[in-house]
């Protein structure tokens, strides 16, 4: 069966329609999880609410395990899925910039759109800022950013093959790390909240 669109099994309009529904589900999930609230999102950095970490780790591991299981059972061909080439220098710099933006603004790109759409003013400002940044980058790409963006190219890097372990082993290790992270962050969360209680976001009616 495999990935449907790259193999031409579904047409482009259908592909986009499915993408639309996936996006709707994503938005519902974010909003229902309270991810349009900046205080909840920034909690990761201050230690009083680790929901962001839990959700993203869970999502990533579910996707990884699910994909590889489907591949093992012949329902998917994982060789046909895409992952971008690694350019470690611009990626590291961008990560730092995004991290700063996240702490300062309280959103990451996806959640900001969610918040903007639900009417949160800070969300709207964030999205505007993001667009300014995107257009600014696009128009100044050639003179300013091209060399940076193409530096540090390593081609398509698969961590499991780089480390010489099988894909399954790698996923298992990351799952274990995720589980440990859950337990540790729970402890941190309890400790931070007992020392410096932040009212439960939901009770604040935000």
């Amino acid at each position, binding site marked *: 069966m495999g990935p449907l669109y790259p193999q031409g099994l579904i047409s482009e309009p259908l592909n986009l329609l499915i993408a639309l529904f996936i996006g709707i589900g994503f938005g519902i999930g974010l909003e229902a999880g309270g991810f349009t609230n900046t205080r909840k999102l920034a909690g990761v950095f201050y230690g009083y609410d680790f929901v962001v970490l839990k959700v993203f780790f*869970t999502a990533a591991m579910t996707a990884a395990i699910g994909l*590889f299981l489907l591949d093992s059972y012949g329902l998917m061909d994982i060789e046909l899925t895409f992952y971008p080439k690694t350019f470690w220098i611009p990626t590291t710099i961008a990560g730092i910039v995004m991290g700063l933006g996240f702490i300062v603004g309280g959103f990451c790109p996806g959640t900001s759109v969610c918040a903007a759409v639900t009417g949160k003013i800070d969300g709207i400002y964030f999205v505007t800022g993001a667009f300014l940044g995107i257009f600014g980058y696009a128009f100044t790409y050639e003179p300013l950013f091209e060399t940076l963006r193409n530096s540090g190219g390593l081609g398509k890097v698969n961590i499991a093959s780089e480390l010489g372990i*099988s894909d*399954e082993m790698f*996923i*298992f290790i990351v799952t*274990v790390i995720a589980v440990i992270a859950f337990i540790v962050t729970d402890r941190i969360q309890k400790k931070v909240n007992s020392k410096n209680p932040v009212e439960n976001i939901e009770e604040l009616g935000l």
Partner: protein
Amino acid sequence: MRTTDKIVIIGLLLGSVWLFFAGKNAGDKREIPPKKLHELMLQKHRDISADELTRRIINGDPMLQIVDVRNEKQYNSYTLPGAINIPLEDIMKTDNLAYFDQDVLNTVIFSNGTSDAQIAWNILTRLGYKNLTILRGGLNNWFETIILAKPPTGPYDKESDDLYQFRNGARVYFGVGASSETESAPKPKVRIPIIKRKKKEVEGGCS
């Protein structure tokens, strides 16, 4: 919230362990599923007739690649023009597999009969290689059909007669005179096929 957390954690751990049991080894990743393989096996167009192959050899088809899966001794004694030798027992060596790792040439696999060629075809198709055909009847049948071509019996039938004329002409190509003519065999021009590497680099990714 603790219970959902626990369920999620257990679920993820079980899932990642399950991977080990469901997992096929890395080599399998390229194999086509048994069902698809068996469908392909039962299709008739994985065969090529002796006449068709002869036609392609004589025309110097640049897309043709012929593989002889018999042992070296038989290959050295006689083989089809332009054929490369990959004995059946060596068919899975990485060096040899490289000949099939392309989708530009049309490969014809042959042996004396068909059994060995069938095995080779089956294994290679299973591993995901494409454009493979088997010489129907093998070298034995080819020899009888072309080199030992017999004139058609019975009432005149244009098709049979044309076929016989073609085979007779082919005999000349392979160095055996047609009837009682004494002209020397034409030296065949063996064109080494140019393997066009079609690398489709699709740009992807962003951000």
